[in-house]
């Protein structure tokens, strides 16, 4: 069945494209877990998924944004896999098995990687805490100053009366 699928895809993609899906694909990720896509739905899903896959020859660019030949080829590979009904996760897992996790533009949120996901939020909260503390402290200081300000005319009066004799 896989062979016939590969042959059908080969015909679909043109005679020179060669077999897109190797027989090892199912061994690696199992049978297609999604729905076989075509037409607009396929292109839409391809655009989304391609934005999560790193172009192997570029720096920090997704294959959807890259004009590189190898990025184009990888997009063809992803398109063929989506057309055969493989899910996003199956496709990413398959690529990861070849290229390593670096092929994902954003690292998986697990293990040590969690630092990358959690630390910015944590630092942001910490910064927010510091800002709130500073603002509260300066408000308190201002309030204290205000309290003294109310006494000013009275203090002035006391000074005038006490020191009046010396002037």
């Amino acid at each position, binding site marked *: 069945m896989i062979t016939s699928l590969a042959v059908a895809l080969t015909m679909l993609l043109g005679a020179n494209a*060669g077999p897109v899906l190797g027989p090892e694909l199912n061994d690696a990720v199992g049978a297609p877990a999604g729905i076989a896509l075509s037409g607009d739905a396929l292109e839409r899903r391809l655009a989304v998924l391609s934005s999560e896959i790193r172009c192997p020859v570029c720096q920090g660019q997704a294959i959807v944004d890259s004009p590189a030949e*190898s990025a184009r*080829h990888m997009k063809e590979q992803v398109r063929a896999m989506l057309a055969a009904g493989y899910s996003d996760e199956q496709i990413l897992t398959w690529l990861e098995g070849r290229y390593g996790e670096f092929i994902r533009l954003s690292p998986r949120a697990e293990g040590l990687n969690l630092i990358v996901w959690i630390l910015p939020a944590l630092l942001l909260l910490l910064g927010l805490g510091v800002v709130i503390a500073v603002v509260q402290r300066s408000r308190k200081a201002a309030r204290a100053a205000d309290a003294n300000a109310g006494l000013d005319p009275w203090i002035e009066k006391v000074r005038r009366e006490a020191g009046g004799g010396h002037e």
Partner: protein
Amino acid sequence: MSARSRISWPVLLVGLVVVVPLLYLFVRGLGFDPKDVASPLVGKPAPVFALEALDGSRVSLATLRGRPLILNFSATWCVPCRQEHGELVMAARQLGASASVVNVIYEDEPEAMRAWVQGSGFPTLIDPGGQTAIAYGVYGVPETFFIDASGVIREKVKGPVDLGRIRDTLEAMP
């Protein structure tokens, strides 16, 4: 109030504890090649392929089994590949029947490659759509995979290999 007394030592300490490790990681990271990731394929069966060679013959992984295989990805636009090619030709001559050398064209025109690899003594395969390169997780050229007689990838080398490296890697293979 003097400027000196404005420094809050606890705040400074917390700041340093946060900033110094980040700065250290950043400086260390500058020296890393982010693409220099260990191939997850090492220790796994090599992805199968059956490709047409420049001479019109068909070469597959199955036909190459039984002795170690040096699978090299290269292109004419890649300068280090040119330097490496001479080493591969020498290696193929020295190894004779004890190991195979096979070259796969990476994102290049077969016609451009033809003149370059003429007389190399080993097959150069056309990889339509770059599928074999994707199956092997090639980040750039040159890259060389050392596959043992049973078809398991034992080593992946990024960048050009020379005769010494080829010999050492083959010797270290089980």
